[in-house]
């Protein structure tokens, strides 16, 4: 059974305050080793530097890493919604059409924008146009509460949106009913308490839940932690297998969900 980590970063061990490489392949090698040692086959791979420095450089570095490890990394790009419209649309199209990225990841509180800025409407338009999903850090004040992301998904029903943290420790209750309502809103389980993870499963079933760790370049135990949490679910093995990998594959078949 293939295990896919739907939330990983390459290149910055934030919590340890340690840069593991801005664009060189040593960061990618470290990422691949951690994933392999953890028993994870593939990852939705996000930039780290791209959220904090130059998004285009981050996208290029991620593309180089993916080229070196195409069997492990499923790359997602990022952009700055404050760019002028031409630059914004151009970089998004470059990411998908030239670099082969599968979607876009944002961390609004780090990147410093509200979900209501005009550039995020352009992001939605481009993602819908290119038929790629978008994922957001959620569960944090001020710019990315769980419901701020939900209402973005609600505003764009043809846009496939993945909550990257399931609302974190306290926002997960907010997303249960919206997830039932919105076909275009899925949840990555990297964040809720164990009680929250179980409740999301109990209320929503397995089909829109994805295993994710926020690991990759982090401490190796980060990946192990969320593997343990998903495997500890009170759920049949068939459902755990979906959450650990099968759903991630299905999630990427965007057209099927929103047809």
């Amino acid at each position, binding site marked *: 059974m293939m295990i896919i980590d739907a939330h990983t970063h390459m290149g910055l061990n934030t919590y340890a*305050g340690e840069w593991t490489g801005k664009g060189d392949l040593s960061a990618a090698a470290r990422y691949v080793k951690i994933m392999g040692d953890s028993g994870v086959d593939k990852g939705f791979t996000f930039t780290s530097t791209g959220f904090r420095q130059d998004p285009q450089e981050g996208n290029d570095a991620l593309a180089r890493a993916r080229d070196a490890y195409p069997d492990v990394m499923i790359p997602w790009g990022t952009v700055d919604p404050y760019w002028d419209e031409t630059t914004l649309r151009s970089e998004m199209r470059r990411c998908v059409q030239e670099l082969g990225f599968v979607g876009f990841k944002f961390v609004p509180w780090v990147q410093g924008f509200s979900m209501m800025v005009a550039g995020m409407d352009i992001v939605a338009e481009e993602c819908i146009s290119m038929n790629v999903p978008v994922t957001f850090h959620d569960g944090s004040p001020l710019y990315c509460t769980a419901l701020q992301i939900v209402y973005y998904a609600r505003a764009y029903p043809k846009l496939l949106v993945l909550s990257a943290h399931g609302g974190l420790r*306290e926002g997960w209750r907010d997303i249960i009913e919206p997830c039932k309502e919105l076909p275009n809103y899925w949840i990555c389980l990297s964040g809720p*308490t164990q009680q929250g993870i179980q409740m999301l499963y109990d209320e929503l079933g397995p089909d829109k839940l994805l295993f994710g760790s926020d*690991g990759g370049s*982090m401490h190796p*135990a980060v990946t*192990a*932690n969320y593997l343990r949490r998903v495997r*500890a679910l009170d759920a049949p093995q068939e459902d755990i297998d979906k959450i650990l990998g099968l759903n991630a594959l299905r999630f990427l078949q965007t057209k099927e969900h929103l047809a």
Partner: protein
Amino acid sequence: MIIDAHAHVGQGRYKSLAPEELLLQMDEHGIDRAVICPVEEQIILHNREGNDFLLAQVRKYPTRFVGFAVANPWYGEAAVQELQRALGEGLRGLKLHPTYQGFSMNDPIAYPLVDVAAHQQVPVYVHTGTAHFGEPFKLAELARRYPEVTFIMGHAGASDFWYDLPRCHRFAPNILFETSRNGPANYNHMALNIGADHLVFGSNAPESTYPLEMASIRDVFTEAADQNKIFGRNMARALGEV
């Protein structure tokens, strides 16, 4: 000696756990003692009911449970009297939940209750991590006002305030950081910036389980000496036992 520094018992809207069920889990996973506190409604509204429930449990299982009293500072003098009563009858600390109880830790409304804790020389556990009322620096402000009191930062600011912990530690060294709701990445940050002497293991049961919480701590703090501190010795020290 393993001490769970934070568990809930009682029947609540979101958290429900019978004391006997907690004891079973403790026995299964080698937990010697647990610091217990009441659940939601009793933290917010029905403080005496919650404290009486805790008192019954610590009398029934005196070697296994330590009880932390709840008192909502908005009750004013009645809260002070209830805390004095609960401590006088056998509870051994104060639990504050600024988010549920709706107050700022650096607002004078909290001071009368902390005055009681200071007088009785018992620790004060404070929920943190929720935006605004649960901001760790608000607890640091309170802790700096009461340097003689040991404060336990519940959940150590998880999930979003982990960046602030080293500076809380630097300016309010009388704070211990309780581990529940955190994970290996945050533990690694604590290991590098705070150290094992100031961390206490908590499960936040029934929100999580002992195997999940303990495995992640052990993944990061691999030295036995550090584990001994985090899993028991630091909390025993906070309780005045060592």
